[in-house]
């Protein structure tokens, strides 16, 4: 299908429009973080103002930014590694040794994502409490991993499905057992797919707020919980909240930007042939 110049123009406008729409809140947040609290709630909103770094100083001073950052890194990377360790063999089995329950199993896994997390807050909270995992990195890693696992398995499954079955069978004829197949054939071929799965899992874990806020207090609080502390009882301090949020998303934005080629390649893998 070839697009006419007019069609191309419309598509470009729509694309840019959507991008701007999504980018606007982020830009506004960054802008607000440089305003004074008075300017931040000024109506109509100010576009021109004297920028200040006071909010950042305040936020870093008041909260434990470095501690929260460390927790975010440990938890998102930990949850991702654990998720891959469990997800890769699972997706491998489902892609290459399916039986008549495989499809149902996959749908069931996905269906767990259709339920609001708050629905299982009590049982999960109690489980964590009884096993002493409340406000620990381990506890959050486990919960985060479990919540991302369906997506990890689904993504890996689609990537594995792209690998021709003949190649796996050829390796079986050549004497490769399940582990050798994984190591020598599957992982190299699905490498880009696995990498983008890992990236997505890190990003999702990084931005996850529900479990972070509910299952941590101080010791294991990641950046999302750190932000939440600025919408405290004294009321909303928009400028400080924006500064905290900017500090929280900056690392993952930089990370996402640095890996965007990999991410886009992986996410559109198979969609475009």
């Amino acid at each position: 299908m070839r697009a006419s110049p007019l069609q191309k123009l419309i598509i470009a406008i729509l694309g840019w429009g959507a991008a701007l729409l999504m980018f606007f809140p982020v830009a506004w947040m960054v802008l607000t973080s440089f305003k004074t609290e008075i300017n931040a709630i000024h109506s109509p909103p100010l576009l021109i103002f004297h920028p200040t770094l006071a909010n950042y100083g305040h936020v870093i001073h008041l909260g434990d930014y470095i501690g929260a950052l460390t927790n975010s890194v440990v938890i998102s990377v930990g949850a991702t590694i654990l998720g891959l360790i469990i997800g890769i063999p699972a997706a491998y089995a489902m892609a290459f040794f399916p039986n008549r329950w495989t499809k149902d199993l996959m749908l069931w896994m996905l269906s767990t994502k259709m339920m609001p997390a708050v629905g299982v807050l009590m049982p999960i909270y109690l489980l964590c409490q009884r096993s002493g995992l409340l406000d620990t990195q381990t506890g959050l890693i486990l919960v985060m991993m479990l919540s991302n696992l369906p997506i990890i398995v689904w993504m890996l499954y689609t990537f594995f499905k792209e690998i021709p079955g003949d190649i796996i069978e050829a390796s079986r004829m050549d004497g490769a057992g399940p582990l050798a197949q994984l190591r020598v054939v599957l992982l190299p071929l699905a490498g880009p797919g696995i990498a983008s799965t890992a990236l997505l899992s890190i990003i999702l874990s990084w931005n996850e707020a529900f479990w972070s806020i509910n299952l941590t207090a101080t010791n294991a609080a990641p950046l999302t919980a750190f932000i939440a502390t600025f919408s405290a009882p004294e009321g909303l301090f928009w400028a400080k909240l924006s500064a905290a949020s900017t500090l929280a998303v900056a690392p993952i934005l930089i990370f996402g930007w640095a890996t965007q080629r990999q991410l886009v390649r992986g996410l559109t893998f198979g969609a475009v042939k």
Partner: protein
Amino acid sequence: MCTLELKNLRKAYGNIEVIKGIDLTINDREFVVFVGPSGCGKSTLLRMIAGLEEITGGDLLIDGVRVNDVPPDKRGLAMVFQSYALYPHMTVADNMAFALRLAGVPKAERDARVQVAAKTLQLDALLDRKPANLSGGQRQRVAIGRAIVRQPKAFLFDEPLSNLDAALRVQTRIEIAKLHNDLQSTMIYVTHDQIEAMTLADRIVVFNAGHIEQVGTPLELYHNPANLFVAGFIGSPKMNLIGAEVESSNGQSSTLRLEGGSPFTVPTALGQGEKVTVGIRPEHIAVTDQGTISGRVEVIEHLGNETIAYASIGGAEPLTVKLPSASTVQLGETLHFAPRGHAALFNQAGQAIALPRG
């Protein structure tokens, strides 16, 4: 040394039986071709032999040992896939050495064996390339090379030429034939192309809908097809198969009325009124004034080395006749045809009726 025995081998997917009890012995150093229309179960049977597909029933014996439950790599067989199935991230040399590497063969010996195979297949100059940088024919040779390097007891080929263009197909076919002569190992080769089967096979196994129709050398199948299916499948252009009814019969010969009205005599006794099918190959038909089958030429194909004429003899199907290229047959001409020697006869069940050789 490699003999394969298939004893009442069966395969079912759920309730659907796709291999319906195959009995076959494949001798040492034999080149056996499985041929049949697509979907008849050739690949499934080959994959059962390879160990890639579970065996539902019956026994598979390699050199007298039952191997139903032996994993693929322990059966000592090598397989060449239609899709080549090369490892895309490895060089040609690594592809060929992969099985040896897994088996823990020392590097020096690995390299030596790869070199030998590469020489045989003229792949020496390509050893450092990745499969993506090879032509289809070269990829197929690498796939064959990967099999050779393992020095398997037997080679299994699943439609290895289907993805090649016509010229390359003929060339690779000849190379495979040569390879069989050089290696003197047992080979099983699956194809839906009867010409590949005829040119390569010591023995052909004709499959249809999950069972064997006939086993024999190419010439046995050509001259003595056991049934209508084999008669129609082997040979190109296809054998003429004409419905007929017995008009009269004495002790030694019978007179038939072919579909379309022409009379036809066969040297055997048959029951009057019996319905049969007469099979005559296009190359076994002569144009002669004494011929009892008369037909009007409707299409002529000049192939250069020969000419194919299609003549209407009154029935549903035209009679296909192979003529020398010098033939001056004209479109619309009415000719008389007679079989030269070989005509085959099939009863109503489609089984061949034995005729005295003449």
